[in-house]
């Protein structure tokens, strides 16, 4: 409970809402009849409008990337370790834009919003989404904010996919593309984990075919289970061993003891699942995981990543983490190799970490130093 905020925090931030009244055609062919985006900005846009940085969020992310919403907030935004005055994405130099994507459940138009055609929440009828739909709508926000070119588009995981899509679709509007713990497409194993999570949700008796809001209920157990499955895959075996080991939260395993046994890791996972189920929408989870599964950077370029990246103009920084098995370093190296073959400028580092996929959110000195050094160059190039 920070009475005053840390000196390297952006401090108190207020989300803003941008309304778009014109209908937008999505990649599935359906039309979204107007929509709203909730977003936050940190830092000041310079006179030339050249220092804007877009943060693309991952599966369960949202617009609140840095700072605090109130003095009573226990925790800052989800990427506060990396955004702020003096931090790698230095808000003294950059104008940082962070939004909640459409289909989300934190204030932007999504499955919990009212469908104007029916007067009830969209629920399962919300159009299916691809990463490019987010890029398209992010770009509409960009124009509304008076930004012509991003100094950098930055994203981890699913956010990295959006950043790469940006570089291909709007090559003249992205100077630098920072892709962290991401992939050009998911592996079968990765899709399998997403499907197990989705099945957990849809098999919850309270799911009601996605119309749980109309039934005045929530598929909490299914969503919690989905999050538990996901959460395991975001950690590494070693990280879990170090953090929980076989420590018991309750009971004991001595002979003759009949007390109910609960491992620390069980308690932790259940808690994570339960917390998530209270703040996330099940239909959004389905939408976002499907967008992840559908993403294939090179599909429209003859399945050739080199041909795809030949369309990009940005300079790239690609970062992976040693124990990340959900978006393994090998996936990042595929990105890097395609970029090299396409003749793009790219830097790549593989950061040692025990934090698995979650490492991209965690403060790691080498990762911080590298991103700082890169962003400093980006800042120096801002006219």
């Amino acid at each position: 409970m920070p009475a005053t905020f840390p000196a390297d925090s952006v401090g108190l931030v207020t989300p803003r809402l941008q309304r778009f009244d014109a209908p937008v055609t999505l990649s599935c062919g359906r039309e979204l009849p107007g929509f709203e985006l909730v977003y936050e900005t940190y830092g000041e846009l310079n006179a030339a409008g050249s220092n804007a940085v877009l943060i693309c969020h991952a599966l369960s992310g949202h617009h609140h990337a840095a700072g605090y919403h109130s003095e009573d907030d226990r925790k800052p935004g989800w990427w506060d370790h990396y955004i702020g005055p003096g931090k790698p994405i230095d808000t003294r130099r950059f104008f940082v834009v962070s939004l909640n994507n459409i289909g989300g459940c934190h204030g932007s138009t999504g499955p919990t919003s009212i469908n104007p055609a029916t007067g009830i929440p969209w629920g399962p009828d919300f159009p299916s989404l691809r990463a490019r739909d987010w890029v398209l709508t992010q770009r509409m926000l960009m124009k509304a904010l008076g930004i012509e070119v991003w100094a950098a588009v930055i994203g981890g995981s699913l956010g990295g996919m959006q950043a790469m899509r940006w570089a291909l679709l709007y090559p003249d509007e992205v100077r630098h593309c920072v892709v962290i713990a991401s992939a050009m497409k998911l592996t079968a194993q990765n899709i399998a984990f997403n499907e197990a999570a989705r099945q957990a949700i849809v098999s919850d008796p309270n799911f009601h075919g996605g119309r749980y809001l109309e039934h005045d209920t929530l598929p909490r157990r299914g969503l919690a289970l989905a999050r538990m499955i996901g959460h395991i895959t975001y950690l590494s075996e070693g990280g879990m061993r170090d953090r929980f080991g076989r420590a018991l939260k309750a009971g004991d395993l001595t002979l003759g003891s009949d007390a109910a046994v609960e491992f620390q890791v069980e308690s932790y996972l259940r808690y994570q699942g339960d917390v998530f189920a209270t703040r996330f929408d099940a239909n959004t989870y389905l939408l976002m995981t499907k967008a992840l599964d559908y993403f294939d950077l090179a599909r429209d370029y003859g399945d050739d990543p080199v041909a795809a990246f030949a369309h990009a103009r940005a300079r790239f920084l690609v970062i992976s983490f040693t124990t990340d098995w959900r978006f393994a370093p090998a996936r990042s190296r595929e990105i890097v190799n395609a970029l090299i073959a396409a003749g793009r400028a790219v830097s790549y580092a593989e950061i040692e970490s025990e934090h698995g996929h979650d490492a991209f959110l965690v403060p790691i000195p080498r990762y911080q130093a590298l991103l700082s050094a890169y962003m400093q160059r980006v800042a120096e190039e801002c006219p």
Partner: protein
Amino acid sequence: MRRVDLALIMPWIAHGARVLDLGCGDGDLLGMLRLQRDAEGLGVDIDHEHILNCVAAGIPVIEQDLNEGLGNFGSGSFDLVVMTNALQTLRYPHHVLDEMLRIGREVIVTFPNFGHWSCRLHLALQGRMPVSKFMPYTWYDTPNIHFCTVRDFDILCAERNIRVLDRLVLGADHTRNALASRWPNLFGTTAAYHIAR
């Protein structure tokens, strides 16, 4: 390799060349090429400090272990592949040389000359592996696991059908002095080869 040494191989590098620098260190060579040759380069290194310094200098750099192969680089995908003072640290220098000649149309490689008279004298008189300011490591704890001489490298090139386009052997004072030019394998401290297939 020191900046003065790098300056000596500059004339071998064409304007606008696409250069791959294996074991690029802090990116000194690629930085010089960017300024003096308008050449866009890519560095490869494994040392965290080197990678950070390259990124800070705006030099594209890839974290990759040269000993684990260079199969990720396409054949003929670079005009020039450079390796300064790293050949002797590799597990299989001859395989890496083959790979460099596959990836680049031309290759520049530099290495310390183990045939220098001081090495020979050290081994002859003391009967021990040379340790000097120039080669400061003990034999059991050194990154330099494959030292060679200028003559060794000439023979390797002949055996593997590698064309030597240019050769430069520097003396102890880091210049092309008369002794090093006349007797390179005896008076040369650093050798630089410009080669192709």
